[in-house]
């Protein structure tokens, strides 16, 4: 459990490459992550509660590039699975995958918040 708590979810290498050392640009992408992901997680939770599989596919499809950019590799494969098997995947499995995605993204968000606080404020 402790190892999981210390786990790093986010990789900043793509962000550093696109920012070319410009702190404002870096901050722009970090803030955008902090704003967009919670919004999409709420949409995901709502879609799951309604068992709206098509909407689940659309939400994860939309999130996927930003998660790749932030190097959150752990959830790329489950997200791709949801994108392609959203109609057929058993509900209990769908729920378990989404809960895992939510857990990891909440971890990633707290990491991003910490980076903003320690490096930009």
């Amino acid at each position, binding site marked *: 459990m402790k190892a999981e708590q210390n786990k790093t979810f986010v990789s900043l290498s*793509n962000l550093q490459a*696109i920012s*070319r050392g410009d702190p404002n*640009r870096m901050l*722009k*992408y970090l803030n*955008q*992550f902090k704003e*967009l992901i919670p919004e999409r997680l709420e949409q995901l939770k709502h879609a799951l509660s309604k068992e709206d599989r098509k909407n689940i596919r*659309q939400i994860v*499809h*939309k999130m*996927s*590039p*930003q998660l*790749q*950019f932030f190097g959150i590799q752990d959830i790329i494969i489950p997200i*791709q699975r949801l*994108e*392609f098997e959203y109609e057929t995947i058993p509900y209990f499995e769908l729920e378990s995958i989404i809960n895992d995605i939510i857990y990891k993204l909440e971890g990633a968000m707290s990491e991003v918040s910490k980076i903003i606080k320690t490096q930009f404020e």
Partner: protein
Amino acid sequence: MSKPTTISNSIKSVIIDDDPFIQDLLIDKLNQYFPEIEVLGVGNNGKEGILKIQSLQPDLVFLDVEMNDMTGFEMLSKLEGIHFKTIFITSYKHYAIKAIRFNALDYLLKPFDLEELKNAIKRFKKNHSKDNVPLALSNLKTKNISEQILVLKTQQGELHLQLKNIIIIEGDRNYSYIHLTNNKKELVSKTLSNIEDLLEGKGFFRCHKSYIVKKSHITSYKNSSSILLSNGSIVPISRRKKDVFKDWYENN
């Protein structure tokens, strides 16, 4: 010393995508690596995209395949004329990639690999007057699949092949021979597996490691180990494909 870019030789572009992250990322990459590309505006959905295109008259449009109000193809079909080149932008293995590849359209995978972006821009500069979007829209509208036109890039340019004219595709390592009606034959530098992917769900079947056949050209398969085609050719059915072939032939 490189020639400075001026407004007169700049490429006017518009980005249409409903994800602010993708908009920013593409603008930053274009600004950093392609100063000759001027982003005139951004559309946050299909409806806004149409307005931006009409008012800004871009040379190049980066267009998301799936937006919250419509798909990229739907947006394009609503325009009165298409006087720009489109580079579609999509996530990994989106189902629209099938239509994009079938029509040999240009596309980029989000979140944009720099090399892929460079190649797409290079292709745009080399061939910006040619665009298969009108053909793609016509293919999407065509209900009779056999009337659709497959676009294959070749060294000389492009081959446009109406599906109903394709009888057999014969694989030969990295190349394929396409046998057409009227005894014509075309050679393309694509593997048989590549072509099999492009033709999925279009009335074709890979009956053997070296052959794909078109159902409407099958004359008979009486002895269940070979197929007779409308041009008189006989192609084998591999042993492990016999049952699947029979099922496909009888039920499609």
